[in-house]
């Protein structure tokens, strides 16, 4: 069964002609009339059971680990597969009794068990520290179960696994333990590419909206994508040195391949993705071009970062405001929240950056406090106003 929100289901039935607009309006009004606690309890069960599943998983790993050294290779491998089978059987049994949410959490635990098993097998055979096949295979296992259950938790887990696999692909150049993180965060790794990867991910999220079986992942991937864009960009507004550090890139073959893939994905989305209007599509294209251009400029000429820094700050602020607007037009409160948070962060960072240089520190703190209080009131007001426009 496809696990989608009621509003999305109504929209789908409307599109398919199974519901007329009047009936759809009645159904939406009925949903709105339900008390919040009743609507929220299902989500609470899911959150609690997912946490429970994660705790059980950690306990199992610790239990196995404490007896690990006394086992031979065959016994270790047998134990790992037995552990997976136990969780899978529990998930089936619970599902058959009608506890679907708990069953979903146990399937999530089964997916976590696959990951733990992959890395424990890696440990048994002393496989490389940048064993990229590990997160990649775990990603395949996660996507397959996510698809089977239409599970957003699985969709959420898939992104860090994809980043890890991509970062470790091809190994690294630093000595041993540094490799594991250097492949992700160095200038030859993924760090300078995070916003572009985010853009590609947003594109992918918009594309999968066209596929009914994958629509469940769209919202989660969109939020992941936007966060991958927003967090590094906002951090880089703190200082021109940080802008340099964040986006300095070696332009290795792998990095070029990622840039090309993200560009192709973004282009395909702008061409075939669903947008509310042509002006929305054009604005999205403009935002993408600006983002690509600025990042490539900052990466290619890191020593000139000071020159483009003011423009960069303005661009990030502009993109944050655009994100708020895009969130309103797409009826996505999460995008509005991220947009408002990013814009506010840019303002706060710039305030502290300039005030500390230009005025006495004590006055800067007092004024800073006042600015933060006034800004938070303004942000909350604007956020509520924007979210009110989304609510039906």
């Amino acid at each position, binding site marked *: 069964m496809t696990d989608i929100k009621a509003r999305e289901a109504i929209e789908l039935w409307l599109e398919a002609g199974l519901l007329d607009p009047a009936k759809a309006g009645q159904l939406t009004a009925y949903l709105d009339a339900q008390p919040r606690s009743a609507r929220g309890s299902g989500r609470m069960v899911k959150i609690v059971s997912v946490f429970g599943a994660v705790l059980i998983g950690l306990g199992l790993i610790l239990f196995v680990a404490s007896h690990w050294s006394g086992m031979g290779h065959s016994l270790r491998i047998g134990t*790992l597969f037995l552990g*997976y089978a136990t969780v899978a059987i529990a998930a089936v049994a619970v599902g058959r009794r009608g506890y679907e949410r708990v069953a979903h959490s146990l399937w999530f635990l089964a997916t976590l068990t696959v990951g733990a*098993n992959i890395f424990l097998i890696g440990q048994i055979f002393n496989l490389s*520290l940048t064993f990229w096949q590990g997160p990649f295979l775990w990603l395949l296992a996660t996507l397959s179960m996510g698809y089977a259950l239409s599970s957003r938790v699985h969709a959420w887990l898939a992104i860090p696994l994809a980043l890890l696999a991509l970062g470790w692909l091809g190994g690294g*150049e630093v000595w041993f333990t540094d490799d594991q993180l250097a492949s992700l965060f160095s200038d030859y790794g993924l760090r300078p590419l995070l916003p572009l990867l985010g853009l590609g991910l947003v594109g992918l999220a918009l594309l999968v909206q066209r596929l009914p079986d994958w629509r469940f992942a769209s919202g989660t991937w969109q939020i992941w994508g936007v966060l991958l864009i927003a967090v590094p960009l906002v951090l880089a507004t703190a200082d021109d040195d940080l802008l340099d550090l964040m986006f300095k890139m070696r332009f290795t073959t792998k990095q070029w391949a990622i840039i090309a893939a993200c560009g192709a994905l973004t282009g395909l989305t702008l061409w075939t993705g669903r947008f509310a209007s042509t002006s929305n599509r054009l604005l999205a294209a403009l935002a993408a071009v600006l983002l690509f251009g600025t990042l490539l400029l900052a990466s290619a000429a890191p020593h000139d970062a000071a020159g483009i820094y003011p423009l960069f700050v303005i661009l990030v602020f502009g993109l944050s405001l655009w994100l708020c607007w895009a969130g309103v037009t797409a009826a996505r409160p999460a995008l509005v929240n991220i947009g408002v948070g990013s814009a506010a962060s840019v303002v706060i960072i710039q305030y502290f950056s300039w005030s500390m240089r230009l005025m006495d520190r004590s006055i800067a703190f007092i004024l800073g406090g006042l600015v933060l209080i006034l800004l938070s009131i303004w942000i909350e007001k604007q956020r509520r106003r924007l979210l009110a426009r989304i609510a039906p």
Partner: protein
Amino acid sequence: MSRRILVAVCIQVFVMGLVLVPPLMVRATGTVVYLETEKMDPRALFRGDYVILGYTLAQNILPQQQASEARRKFIPVFVTMTTDRPARFVAVGFERPQPKEGQVCIVGRSRGQGSVDFPQIAQFFVPEGTGHAIEQARGANLLAKVAVSDSCKALLLGLEPR
């Protein structure tokens, strides 16, 4: 259980099995060589306790310029060695070699100063608390037992006294 979930479970089991295939293949069909180990600085641990291993025959075998270029461009380095106990260095190059009888090759990467790392066999996972003793024993008195495939892939089977 729906058909989709059944397929997903099959994929998950297959994926776990897939991780086992390459190491078991190398273990079953590979040639065993014994490499002298080098003492290396201990590092922080990330995936359980492990000991870092360097190999004597892979130290200072590349000219400086080639070593730097190979490191910068991520070019794989192939080291050919004998199957003696301990193994002896034969040749190093950037193309996959055709080892003669009594020889094997392992693929590695340049560390930049002329030495070559073998990332596939650079870490040996150990039970918690036992790493320090092995770290003390590393060096000429400790040999790494390694299975090597025809395609220069290596699997660390264990550590043995000389």
